């Protein structure tokens, strides 16, 4: 069900900016693979995701999905944004149905949407106005809306960053499960290292000015992932080092502590 995505030498200049926002990005993403793009603000990760969605056309190079060049948005690849951006005059069901309405696929729409609402745990809220929902529930509606057109690719632009910690973790796990069940190709943009390790098969670290893929890290953990496991914590720590944080593996800890605690003693002596 998932599609192969190839990013072919994308370079992008925003108008009026001298430095390239993206410079020579080249990536191949296998069908059903989950990718996390991680990097500091302004590294162009969101720009790149908008290109995958067809919402932005790169100045040079192109994105291909199953070999076809992306020139505009399509129900076959769908993006979820940081804000759910639901339409407040509609019920949960109406919001989730929109993609199908825009495609003119009204046949069997109701069953399909209701089934999806059940999947995201909102079956009992189908007729509720979306303004009455919590932030997490609203993002679930947005998820159902994205999945309704049966996309091959799901693109996530920090969709959990505005949620509280508990809701965030449960939605990460849920999206992970759904994406893997359906074999979708997932591209996730985030600045949350734990989120990247929890959801991706491969994490790409981007550097800014110009935006480039600085390094790639495979995450060979089975899903669902245990966030408390040593391997998980270790990979998280390794990923941190790409952002200038010093790594403190367990073996080095006693000596580090020893050094710091010795200093005042030496002074006293």
């Amino acid at each position, binding site marked *: 069900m998932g599609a192969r995505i190839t990013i072919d030498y994308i370079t992008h200049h925003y108008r009026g900016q001298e430095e390239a926002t993206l410079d020579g990005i080249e990536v191949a993403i296998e069908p059903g693979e989950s990718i996390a793009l991680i990097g500091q603000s302004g590294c162009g990760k969101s720009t790149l995701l908008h290109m995958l*969605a067809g*919402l932005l056309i790169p100045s040079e190079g192109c994105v291909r999905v199953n070999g076809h060049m992306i020139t505009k*948005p*399509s*129900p076959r690849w*769908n*993006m979820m*944004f940081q*804000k759910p*951006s639901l*339409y*407040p*005059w*509609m019920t949960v069901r109406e919001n989730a149905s*929109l*993609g199908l*309405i*825009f*495609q003119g696929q009204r046949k069997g729409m109701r069953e399909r949407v209701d089934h999806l609402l059940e999947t995201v745990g909102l079956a009992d809220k189908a007729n509720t*106005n979306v*303004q*009455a929902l919590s932030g997490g529930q609203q993002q679930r509606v947005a998820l159902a*809306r994205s999945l309704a*057109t049966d996309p091959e690719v799901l693109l996530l632009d920090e969709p959990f960053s505005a949620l509280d910690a508990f809701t965030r973790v449960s939605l990460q796990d849920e999206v992970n499960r759904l994406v893997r069940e359906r074999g979708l190709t997932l591209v996730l943009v985030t600045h949350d290292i734990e989120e990247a390790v929890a959801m991706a098969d491969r994490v790409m670290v981007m550097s800014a000015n110009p935006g480039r893929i600085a390094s790639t890290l495979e995450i060979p953990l089975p899903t669902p992932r245990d966030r408390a496991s040593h391997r998980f914590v270790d990979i998280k720590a390794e990923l941190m080092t790409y952002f200038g944080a010093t790594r403190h593996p367990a073996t080095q800890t006693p000596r580090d502590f020893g050094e710091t605690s010795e200093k005042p003693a030496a002074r006293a002596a």
Partner: protein
Amino acid sequence: MNRTATLKLPQYSSRDLALGVVRGADTVRKGLQYPALGIALLLALWWWGGTVIANNPDTMAFASFAPGPTLVAFWDMVSTGAVWSPIESSLQRVGLGLVWAIVIGVPLGVAIGYFLQLRQLTHVPFQFLRMISPLAWMPIAVLAFATWDAAIIFLIAIAAVWPITYATAHGVQRIDPMWFKVGRNLGAGPYHTLRHIILPAIAQDVFAGIRLAVGVAWIVLVPAEYLGVTSGLGYAINDARDTLEYDKLAAIVLVIGIIGYLLDAICVRLIKRSSYREE
């Protein structure tokens, strides 16, 4: 633990119920207190004015403007049914004028709100035209249209089109840009964007514009009907003046005010109903 206590349903005695009814009536009374006072004050002012006119030898001839004679004439017009014919003519003209104003104003407003260039292009000409009193168009309207009726409808439409256009444009400009982006992302074309995103988002603003337009249209109607036509509330006022029936004249003014108030109340209802914000 006392489990039965937690399961106990609230029980209402007849005393509670009676209290509730009394309290409900109390809220209604409190809600109507000030509007009733306002009406009473206006009536008092009117009555006082009538007395002043009646006691001044110079203005005595106009004494029937006072509430007493006016209300008698008003009741006479209502009971004989004479009041309905001018109302019908006037409402028809205002209705048609508003229909034209909406048909032109809403699409124009959507376009102006959506396209920045169009907004810049139309700004000076439209603000210029908007500031010309609709009644200033009267001689041109009379020349341009074959019938008096058409000329009046044109004057109403040209007065009502601006508030509708600009309220609509303002509504479109306020639309969250993310709603357009999400729509595009879900594959919405221009028709779907208009039908499912823009129109529901601006419905309330459009009705707010229509409310303003109704006010303007109802004001323009009366002077417009002073000319040419032989029906409608404006004509009835002029007619009463010519026949020196000042009580009838004041009664028509009363009718104009009441209908204007009702039209506004309808618009307020429509604005509330078209709002998507949950209270």
